[in-house]
C-alpha cells in the first residue's frame, strides 16, 4: 500500500508498569493498526516518561490506560506537561475511570474517555478526527 502523501496517524498507547491487565489495550492497539494507524506501545515507571516518548515519536494522539488506580496523579501531570512542551497531541484515556471524575478530567484536557463496554469504533472515530 502506497502511503506517500497520506499522513499516517501515529498513536502512543501507554500503561503503567504496575498495571497488570493489558488485554484491553492490546486489543485497541490491534484495532487501530487495522485502521491504518501506527501504534507505539509503551509501559512507564513514572508518567514523565510518557511525555518524553510522545515528544520523540511526534505522535498525534497520546492514550493512557488505567486499571485500578493511578489516573489521579498521572492525568493532570501528563496533561500539564503536554501543554508545557507545546505538544498538540490529542489526549485520551481508557480503563476503569469512575464516572464522577469524567468532568474533572475533561477540564484538565482529556479529549476522550473510553471505558470497557464501549464500542471500539468510537475510539477509532475519535482519533480519526485529528486529521479532520
Amino acid at each position, binding site marked *: *500500500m*502506497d*502511503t*506517500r*502523501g*497520506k*499522513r*499516517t496517524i*501515529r498513536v502512543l498507547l501507554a500503561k503503567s*508498569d504496575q498495571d497488570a491487565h493489558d488485554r484491553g489495550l492490546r486489543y485497541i*492497539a*490491534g484495532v*487501530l*493498526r*487495522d*485502521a*491504518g*494507524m*501506527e*501504534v*507505539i*506501545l*509503551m*509501559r*512507564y*515507571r513514572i508518567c*514523565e*516518561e510518557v511525555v*518524553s*516518548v510522545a*515528544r*520523540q*515519536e*511526534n505522535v498525534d494522539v497520546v492514550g493512557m490506560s488505567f486499571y485500578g488506580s493511578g489516573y489521579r496523579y498521572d492525568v493532570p501531570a501528563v496533561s500539564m506537561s503536554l501543554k508545557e*512542551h507545546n505538544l498538540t497531541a490529542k489526549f485520551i484515556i481508557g480503563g476503569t475511570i469512575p464516572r464522577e471524575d469524567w468532568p474533572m478530567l475533561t477540564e484538565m484536557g482529556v479529549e476522550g474517555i473510553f471505558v470497557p463496554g464501549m464500542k471500539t469504533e468510537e475510539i477509532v472515530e475519535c482519533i480519526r478526527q485529528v486529521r479532520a
Partner: protein
Amino acid sequence: MELVRKMLGGDADALSQLIGAVEDDLINISEIMSKIHQNTGHGYYIGITGPPGAGKSTLIDKLTTVMREEGHSVGIVMVDPSSHITGGALLGDRVRMQKHYLDEGVFMRSMGTRGGVGGLSRKARAVVRLLDAFKKDFILVETTGVGQVETDICDISDTNILVLVPNAGDVIQAMKAGIMETADIFVINKTDLGNADNLAVDLSLALEQQKRRDNWIPPIIDVQASNSLRVQQVYEAIQLHRKFLDEGLFLQHRRRKGVEDFKKLVREELLDRFVTVLKNNQKFKTNLDRVERGEIDPYSACAEILNSVETWEALRNSFSNK
C-alpha cells in the same frame, strides 16, 4: 529552514518534527539532506537484524547502557513492518528500552516500513542521517526478519550485527537470505536455552565457506541479553570492527556506502515515478486488459509500453511538474 536550523542546534523536538515531516512527505527530502550533509559523518552506524524473537531490542537496550556508561550519545531507529493492506503498524520495540526514556543522551524513534518500493525505505535511511547530523555518536538501526530489508540495512551501516537464537533453524534461513556475507558480528542470544554451541559450530563452518571482500573475520559471541551477560563483549567487538575499518578502509567504506545509497535512491525514485505514471497511462491499462484476456503475451505487452514515446513523455513531464 527553521526546523533544520533548530535541529542542528540540538533541539530534539525539532528533530522529532523533522522526522515526521520526512515520513509524511510534507517536505522535500533532498532539500533537507543537502542542508545537513556537511553535518553528517560523525556518527557510527550499527545495523541490528535477525528473526523475530531473537531478542534484538533487549540487546539494543543493554548495548545502549554500555555506550552511555562510556560517555557516548545514542540514536536508535526501530523499524517494524507496516501492513500491506491497511498501512497500519504495531511499533512495540520500545517496551524493552524503558530505562532510557528519560535520558536526553538517547533519542529513539519507531518507524513503520510504510509500503515503499523494496525493503528499508529511503525515509528510514534519511532518518538515520538526521540522527547523525543531530550529533549522536552511535546510531543503531533495528529491523526484523530476513530478506530484502536486511540487505538494505547493510548498505548503510558501518557494522552489521546479526542476532540469532539456538534451536530456531536460523542458520539455514540466514544463508538463504545472503545475510551471511554481510554480517560483521554474529550474536547468539538466549544461550540459557541451550544448544548455543551447535549453532556456533554451524556458523563457523558456514563462514569458512563464504568469501568476504575485506579480511574481517566475523566474531561469534554468545550472550544472554536479558541478563546483560557478555553484552560488553559485543560492544568491544564493535569497537574492534570500527578500528579495522579505520585502519585504512573507513572513509573508503563510508564513501562506498554513500555510493550504494545513491544508486539505490536513483533506482527507487525512478521506479516510484514510473509506477505513478503508468497508473494513468492508457496504453498500460489497455495492455493489462489484453494480457488478462490472453490476447497478448506479457513480454510483448511490456515492450510496447517501453517502446512508446508517449510513455517517456509522460515520465519526463512528471519530473518537470513536481
